[in-house]
């Protein structure tokens, strides 16, 4: 019990003295997760709209497959990315393994099903009359798509928040393709894993608290955005 208490005290000391190592790890975590979600959204939102607005053979199967991949294990994505980017793999020449870049690539793949699937269901939730109304008001297909996305914005934001949560909290992928290199690819989750295995509870707890705090702040921001309407 004393150990946990001491751990907490030390954790808060590390946080409030802006311990450079803790801050850099937290910063990198945020940076990687946010980059992944932003890049993922830039790809997923138009792609989801494309899938939603077009009828084609196998659409239902595609959507089911996407939804199945919501819970794809992070280590499976890690394995895939590792095999692709290892020097003996097809993309080895890019020299990206064990870099933050490849972690972002992996996380984009990881969050893509959530972003795609939840955006598609968000769009399906929009009244079909909205599309007709927009078109009748003279919107071209691109403008129509934006209107529908905007109508579905709360559900889309929820998808983005969920994707961010998955990105910042995953450990398997970050460990496998990032390599947990100190000062370069070490993020909150991999650091917690390492420090706990070393028995260094104080640092682990400090990092864990920061992780929860980040999640809290992001959720508050998103809620405020939603409440503006």
């Amino acid at each position, binding site marked *: 019990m004393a150990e946990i208490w001491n751990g907490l005290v030390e954790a808060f000391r590390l946080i409030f003295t802006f311990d450079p190592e803790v801050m850099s790890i937290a910063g990198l975590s945020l940076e990687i997760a946010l980059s992944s979600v932003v890049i993922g959204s830039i790809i997923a939102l138009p792609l989801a709209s494309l899938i939603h607005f077009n009828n084609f053979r196998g659409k239902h199967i595609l959507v089911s497959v996407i939804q199945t991949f919501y819970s794809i294990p992070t280590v499976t994505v890690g394995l895939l990315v590792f095999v692709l980017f290892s020097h003996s793999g097809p993309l080895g020449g890019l020299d990206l393994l064990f870099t933050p870049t490849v972690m972002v690539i992996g996380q984009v793949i990881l969050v893509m099903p959530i972003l795609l699937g939840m955006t598609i269901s968000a769009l399906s939730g929009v009244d079909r009359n909205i599309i007709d109304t927009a078109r009748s*008001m003279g919107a071209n297909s691109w403008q129509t798509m934006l209107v529908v996305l905007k109508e579905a914005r709360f559900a889309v934001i929820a998808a983005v928040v969920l994707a961010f949560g998955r990105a910042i909290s995953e450990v398997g992928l970050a460990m496998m393709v990032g390599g947990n290199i100190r000062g370069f690819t070490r993020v909150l989750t991999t650091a917690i894993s390492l420090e706990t295995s070393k028995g260094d509870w104080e640092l682990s707890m400090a990092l864990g608290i920061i992780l929860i705090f980040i999640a809290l702040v992001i959720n508050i921001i998103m809620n405020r955005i939603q409440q503006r*309407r």
Partner: protein
Amino acid sequence: MAFIELKNLGQKRDGRHILSGVNLSVERGESVALIGPTGAGKTTLLRLLDMLDKPATGKILIDGVNVTSSEKERLATRRRMAFVLQKPVVFNLSVYENVAYGLKWRGLDRHQIREKVNHILETVELTKYSKRNARTLSGGEMQRVAIARAIATSPEVLLLDEPSANLDPVSSAKIEDLISKIIRENAITVIMATHDMAQGQRLAHKICVLVNGEIVQTGNAQQIFELPKNREVAEFVGMENILDGVVATNKSGLAVIKVGGKEIETVTKFGAGKEVSLCIRPEDVTVALARLSSSARNRLAGTISWVAFNGPLCRLEIDCGFPLIALVTKRSAVEMKLKRGVKVYGIIKVVSIHVIERQD
């Protein structure tokens, strides 16, 4: 050359024809009402007119140009029109933004948009709700937003689908006033769908009756009301008595028609032996207790089978070998002590009877 011309327009859904062989000309500035029962194809026709759907057959010409050819052409044409859908849907945005959208899409600058939107909101009396989320408005207010949104873009053609359906009588009257004001002030071409005959009569120059996906009759209100072309139109415009009979004799237009053992005189071009239906409005049937000597030629004796009071009016059915519905004022019904079992005469003027060919 008419402004809008529909040529042999048809539409299918799930392999079934829901609209076929529609030919229609609309002049610039004319307002046309499409009337017909629910499911007749009114909405389908409006959607084709607004280029929202592609027709299965036929084409649409505007100023003689076929506008259904390419998507680019269709979008350009759509931008000359506005369509108020039956169920008012507003975007989950402020009233102002709702009205501004169409203008933004047409590339107007912020200043022009503000000026225009504020003017329109004044027209539809929604200025005070400008900043409010449109989803929080009442049905009538939403419909006004929808109309404001439509006219904001100064369309050449305004398409309205049941503009006052699902609204309470007060909101409905308000919307109707607004539409007639728009028609008056803008010399705009209007094509509206309605199942309310009277509304069509109030708002339109020309009425098209649509039944089962076909235009069965086009004309002004009086023509449609008094001279329905067939049984369906007759039913729709309120001809409650449609009596099947056969022409017995026809002497230079004045004919005797046998209906359920009785003879009814009327004016028709159909010759002896022709199977016809007689259309008679209930208000054109006069009820009398005695065999009055009036100028009316048809006096049908019978017994009242039921009486129903409805506000200041009274509807009743006379069994005179066939059921004949009559509409009298409540006052005369009381004076004459009309009730079930009373023997009366139904009196019908020759000119009140409209004869149509019998359909199978």
